[in-house]
């Protein structure tokens, strides 16, 4: 595996401990990447830090973290000092709670990482923790310091490894009642349920990564190729996007549903 681990530490269940490493599950590397240029000079634009008072450039080596004590009053903290933050969760994922997977709602999932053993000596211990979670259909809950914040995390077995999710903080997920308040409590009209069930059944397919292909990325690459050929003489393409007419509000849902089901039946099974 070529990717450098984002974090290394220990996974711990009671007295069982094993060295683990973690890599991000998402990546920007395959995306069409742009650089910021200075339009006039066509040189790359880079960012640098300047002193907010003197306006002079600050060397990388002179940048230091400051903990604010009061207005314009900072305590300087070096990286080595920060290493000593006395939280076990900076180096060890101690799983203290297990819960059925469905108790953690999807809305809490923030960022996924892949967790794997970091040393052959820990492979069996890692496998024990993973397989026992899988056998019991449970996920593990723990804490981990990532980017100088302590995060709640969820550990879920996946194939030979474990997916580690950071969970959102309590105040980051907005209260749904504000948004769903206007929806009345009554369930959907029972008379229409058979039809919607039929429609759903006809349109249900298996999940496929094809569903998350990005046609725009292709278009961008084509555009770049075109411009490359036109070698600097590309005129500005003019395509004012005009919004299509929005579909009207269907008054008779029942009729529309019937039509939908008929249409599905005609086009045959997927």
């Amino acid at each position: 595996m070529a990717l450098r681990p984002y974090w290394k530490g220990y996974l711990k269940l009671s007295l069982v401990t094993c060295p683990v490493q973690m890599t991000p599950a998402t990546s920007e590397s395959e995306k069409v990447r742009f650089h910021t240029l200075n339009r006039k000079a066509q040189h790359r634009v880079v960012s640098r830090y300047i002193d907010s008072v003197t306006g002079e450039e600050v060397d990388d080596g002179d940048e230091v973290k400051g903990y604010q004590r009061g207005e314009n009053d900072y305590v300087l903290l070096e990286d080595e000092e920060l290493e000593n933050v006395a939280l076990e969760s900076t180096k060890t994922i101690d799983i203290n709670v297990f819960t059925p997977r469905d108790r953690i709602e999807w809305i809490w999932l923030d960022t996924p990482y892949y967790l794997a053993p970091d040393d052959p000596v820990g492979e069996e211990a890692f496998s024990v923790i993973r397989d026992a979670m899988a056998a019991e259909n449970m996920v593990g809950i723990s804490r981990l310091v990532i980017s100088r914040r302590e995060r709640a995390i969820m550990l879920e077995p996946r194939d030979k490894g474990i997916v580690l999710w950071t969970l959102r903080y309590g105040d980051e997920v907005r209260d749904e009642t504000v948004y769903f308040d206007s929806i009345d409590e009554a369930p959907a009209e029972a008379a229409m349920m058979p039809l919607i069930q039929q429609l759903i059944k006809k349109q249900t397919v298996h999940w496929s990564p094809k569903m998350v292909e990005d046609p725009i990325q292709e278009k961008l690459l084509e555009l770049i190729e075109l411009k490359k050929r036109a070698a600097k003489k590309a005129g500005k393409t003019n395509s004012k996007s005009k919004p299509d007419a929005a579909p009207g509000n269907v008054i008779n849902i029942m009729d529309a549903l019937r039509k939908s089901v008929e249409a599905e039946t005609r086009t045959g099974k997927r």
Partner: protein
Amino acid sequence: MVSPRANWKGFIKFGEVACPVALYTAASSSDRITFNTLNRTTGNRVQREFVDSESGRTVSREDQVKGYEIENGQYIILEPEEVAATVPSSDKTLSIEAFIPCSEVDDVYFDKPYYLAPDKMGADAYKLLRDGMKRAKVAAIAKTVLFRRLRTVLIRPHGKGLIATTLNFDYEVRSSAKAFDDIPDMKIEGEMLELAKHIINTKAGEFDTRAFDDRYEKAVAELVKAKLEGRTLPKRKAAPKPKTSDLLEVLRESAGVVAARPKPAPATRNRGAARGKTAAVAKGSKTTSAQQRRTG
């Protein structure tokens, strides 16, 4: 309460049925800034500035433009309107392309969740879709232009409403199979598995996501206090040294099957084990004592 502002307004369409809906941010990431970056020599805050890499002169916002590198140092410039033109015009409609069983949803693709709420006019169709999906245990896949990008969205029932989660594109998600490729195929069975299952069940419980507290800031505050008082900074306790006894023993002890011995003697007799040696050579001193493997 102030009524929230919608991030997007449009329609949701399934079959021939359409109803007006709006999207609202469901989760925001809060910035918890514990630190500021300072200039060590002056103690002043630093500011970010964008400069031309050759001339070193500042470049104004208007002069910053996207460039795609074709060869070393050669760029194709793309103006914002050219990039925008690659995105199809928005029909303001979340058109459901397919339903997929909830059990097949691959959550690793999840990006950002939005509450999908009905407009007053469309509540009947909305509830029908919600209850239909709930009963069939499916989620819906739709594509639409959101915030000037063409996005795939996963829609699923949530309480009285629906949640729409934007999905990352295929090339943005790393293959888990590749990431886990190096892990040996080790199926754990028998006593070991039973013991581990037992430990898990003794720790089974509920987790209240709303009640979680970030202790990092407090720990930093303590560190700062120690520094100001001139105390030597407390060294962080080294990560617990993994036990050197064999895994089955450790599991038994964890599960309370055997009474924890007052002080387990270091399992020196394991030190010559081939497995441990390889690891020690490969990984250096830190993990030499991390012999977890059953050597017997």
